[in-house]
């Protein structure tokens, strides 16, 4: 299947939806900043607009003061923007852009900016409403909890090698639209769109778990490397988040002989109360490093925030003659989101 076929598939979905005929009572356009204005379609009283544009994003700038290291202070900035154009309830075009820059303050270096387009996809279907979702385009493979819990300065410290970067591919989600979701993802490698990597992810929720998902995922690369991920995520409307994630990445096709890398992540974020929120992140990369951060965030008017955090990083080494390096640091930052 080539790119042309993908384009045709995209067009077919689009035409199929237009061919179904539209409700004349629908307003044609609506735009939402921040969260998308959900229209309760099911009751027949409040029709959705035909087109809905959702825009949101977040930005974070942090200053990190460290007790030791090549640089004693660094400045990092990250901005993420997201736009989604929904047509009706099932069709959407979604895009995201990311800008990141970091700069050691005491070495006079210039900032090292980088920009990227994490995804640009057409998506059919909505979670909790449709049993089938398909997304085609540039995006990430479904594996583990792919979104990092903290941005800004933390992008320098949080490991990225456990997740596949954005690439061209197809993600398919089958679900009962309530509690059980199975996702399959295929990524292409070259212009011939041969499969480079495959992944599968299962979500399971139980009513009694109160917004908790158990997540199991597998990743396979054509060259033989494999990853296994297990996670438990509890996220509530009050902004509380509890995340426990375990990922093991095998570098060799034979699992029993292969060396592996491993990540254990624990992230806790308290509910937002009167603008105050606490968070705690702990990452352990086996035989590599450990990173912990304990912080407090204060929100002003919901979209502007200030945060303070204490960080601790430690290099793990199994070699006796290597120095065990530890770093303490203090982070101060400001953030904005819509």
């Amino acid at each position, binding site marked *: 299947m080539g790119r042309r076929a993908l384009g045709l598939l995209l067009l077919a979905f689009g035409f199929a939806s237009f061919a179904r005929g539209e409700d004349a009572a629908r307003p044609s356009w609506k735009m939402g900043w921040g969260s998308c204005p959900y229209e309760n379609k099911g009751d027949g009283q409040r029709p959705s607009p035909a087109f809905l544009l959702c825009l949101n994003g977040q930005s974070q700038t942090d200053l990190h003061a460290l007790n030791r290291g090549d640089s004693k202070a660094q400045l990092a900035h990250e901005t993420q923007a997201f736009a*989604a154009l929904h047509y009706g309830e099932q069709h959407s075009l979604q895009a995201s852009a990311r800008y990141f820059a970091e700069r050691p303050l005491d070495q006079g270096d210039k900032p090292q900016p980088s920009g990227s387009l994490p995804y640009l996809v057409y998506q059919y279907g*909505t*979670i909790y409403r449709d049993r089938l979702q398909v997304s085609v385009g540039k995006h990430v493979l479904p594996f583990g909890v792919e979104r990092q819990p903290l941005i800004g300065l933390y992008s320098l410290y949080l490991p990225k090698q456990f997740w596949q970067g954005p690439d061209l591919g197809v993600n398919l989600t089958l679900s009962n639209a309530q509690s059980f979701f199975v996702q399959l993802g295929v990524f292409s490698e070259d212009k011939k769109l041969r499969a480079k990597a495959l992944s599968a992810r299962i979500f399971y929720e139980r009513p009694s778990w*109160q917004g908790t998902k158990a997540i199991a995922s597998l990743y396979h690369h054509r060259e033989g490397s494999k990853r296994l991920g297990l996670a438990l995520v509890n996220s*509530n409307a*009050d902004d509380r988040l509890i995340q426990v994630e375990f990922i093991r990445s095998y570098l060799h096709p034979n699992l029993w002989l292969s060396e592996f890398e491993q990540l254990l992540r624990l992230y806790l974020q308290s509910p937002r109360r009167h603008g105050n929120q606490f968070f705690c992140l702990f990452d352990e990369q086996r035989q590599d490093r450990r990173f912990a951060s304990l912080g407090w965030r204060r929100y002003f008017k919901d979209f502007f925030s200030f945060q303070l955090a204490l960080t601790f990083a430690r290099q793990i080494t199994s070699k006796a003659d290597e120095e065990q390096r530890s770093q303490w640091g203090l982070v101060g930052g400001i953030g904005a989101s819509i």
Partner: protein
Amino acid sequence: MRPLSAAARPWFWGSLFSLWNSPALSLAPPQPGSSSLGITYELPVDQKPEENPFSTYFPNIQDLFGSISSDNVKSGARLINHSLDSLFDSLFYSLLDNSFTYSYSDSYQLNLNLNRSVFSTDFGSYVIMDRFSFGPEYDATLTTIESVPVILGNNAGIDIVDIHLQSEARRLVDKELLPTWRYAFNNWFGIVPALRALLPPSFNPLQLYDPLRQVETPLVFPLSYSAFAAMPIGTIRSYGISGGVNLPFTLANYVLKNLPSFVERSLLDVATPYSLFLQGEHRINVLRKSKNIAWVGLSTSKTAGHGLAGMVGSTFFLLQDSLKPLPFKGLKTPFFPFDMGIADSLISSTQHLYEFDLSDERGLKAYLAAVHGDFSQAIAQCQAREKARYLTFHFEQRSQGRQIESHRLNNFFLYRAQHQENSKRNKITMFEPSGKYYIWEAGRQQGSSSFDVLLGESEIQYNNQVEIRVQPENEVSESDEAPDLTFKFVGSKPYQLICTMQIRDQLADVFEYEAYLAKLRRVSKFPLDEFPQLPQRSEERKIRALERSYASRPDSLAYVSDDSITRVGTFHATYSANLPYKLLRQAINAPHELQAQYFAEAYKLSASEHPYEDLYATSAILSHFLGRWFSYPLRLFNIQSDRQDAFGEVRHIIDSFAALRIASTPLEIQNGFYQLLRLEYPEAFLVGMMRFLPDEEIPRNLSFFIKPEGELGPGFKTQFERINVKKFQSSLQTSDFDRYHIAQEKLNAFFPTNMHALPRRPQIISVYIQALREPNTPSDALPKFVVEVSAKGLSSGAKGKIYLRFENKGQVQLNKFVLLEEIRESPAQKSLLKPTQNLDYLSYQFILEKPDDSFNSLIYEQQFQLSQEFQLILAISSDGIVWSNEKIFAFSYDEGKLKEIQED
């Protein structure tokens, strides 16, 4: 709670302000029919009995104290990892479970253990059991047979247990009474409150509170009067000396010697120890009943038997050495997909219970001798003809029996499921001042529980126990246990079956709530109409979830969730039914077809599946049996198919009835019931049994404790308040076994969750809240609130201690911002609401206002202005030790108007 009246008149305001700062506040009574400036809440009066005659559900003190050591011996578990821990046990609670081992050699070591267990109660407090144990242990490999090592294990030790109540109110009393350093130490210098703010509600901070008390455990046993006087009333202290021998064979080496190598590489241990064991214990328990009354229990037990265990898993230590140079050994992470075991043991035990009045010098002398292990004075006094006022002998219970225990456990660290069963037969001889009598028992206790990290623990337990009243055929004096002694039934109704069921769920949602009620309606036949129909989903949260999901980014799927299910809160229920002799005989003697019909319906079999004998060969029946056998492996994961098991179980019941029909002697009846009660589904069995007699002839009792939290409105909360104090019971409440049950009740007083029954707890009966604002002040000025609390069961001489927590009330119910939390002391005053003098209750008044110090005052002011909805949580006590239940009163205050928050 419901608003009765709300009122104020100008003169009333004037009088209030004139009394604003006077030490003895007095208010005029609210007038009905005027504007709503005050709210009155009247609470239903607790009707629950002080003592529950059916509480034989609980294990006795011997089982409770002996469980840890004997379990280890039976499974040979010292040789393998202990897999019972939950996530919080592992992460935090285990900070108070410490073992210190000093090894002299490979086979000989000295152990010192400190650990803490916490039991929840039906009145909101927690019972803390701190245990200190110390003793040597010897393990030596005697020989090896076919690669199976034969090990001889020996252990002996002494342990001391301190059992006390803990609650939020008590914690605050500590804040007032203890030096600052000690209060800070009790809270781990702020770590415990921080964890409470950050972690899900299944985290219980009281589990970690006051670590020093645990260290004090070995020093607090009341061996002197001063130590006894220092014991809070209602607490229990206990010490025991135990010893045992065990001979475990580690069969895994033999059975699994050809395991593929990858299993060995998987880091999971496989253990299948078979063990022979012999264990003995001598224990003294002290319960402070009142100021000078001590109950002292003496128990001795011997246990001999054998057990087999099977276990696959391991305990990992995450983040090992991560806090160097601090000696942190890592987070204990038990991962045991399978852990099962069975033990068959013969048990012989004796329990004595004495009551000493320590205000009498002779009573004190006898008490001190008894707690030092010398009961000769107590026995001599009790045998004397003249009854001593300072010493009461309650009873001596001798018991001989056999029990088979089994368990299945799956522990995945964040989630744990467990099932356990215990079948037993006991022959009990009771010696009481009024004479000697005999009770034989046969029964089965079983329970299933699960734990998950977010919602904590939930469990359902059943206990079916038949009690047979017997006496020897010939009068004998001392040799009652002679093997050739034959027994006969006593009376015309010599046996009865007591069935109990208990549900405990730390955080139930609406589906669990409905399922529990359906279960209880089915087994009790009570309509339970008082229970409100709760909305299944919060519409507001459902919309929010859909909003979030609609706009969700493709890489954020893990963070999108539907958390709109209505959360109910804590749900506890205890049900007991006493199936009398008449019912049992009618069931046993009923025609075969009737038995089959009743039980087939109770087990929800269809009409074509009634288990008559002639249908054995049909394909439907065959599929039932095959299905049952094929579903057996699923039990390893605690998954059972009631559909597949039903047919076999009904057949088992009918076959057991056939055996009981021809049983004539007490021994045959005991064995017959022992076989009958070996059931997998006691709930369906009880439903079937109750059809043999009209409901009104079956004594039944049902009680609840439901503590709603989350978004349920105050209307629902009021309904649950009324349900919590209500006693659901059948009109017939007689029992032919009162004497025995009273004795059991006395023993159960030593069981921690029954501690609340000992001292009479105060009860809040009404609360009045009035908002006050000085005249000519701006409408947004902070008001003061006058609160009057009336309560029963308080001593009139002492000042009342009132625990109050005043906090914001909002959508988010966990970790609300607390405006005020303190203990107020106040003398009793004349009630505004109940002007007629009544000695039944006392009233106290106090004012809620912003704190004096500038920092807290600022926070109070800011938080008060941010919110319009508040809740006031109150508890009351005379002595600061025994507290009433905590009650919640929710109200809104907006532009000078006070309003009770109505149901959503």
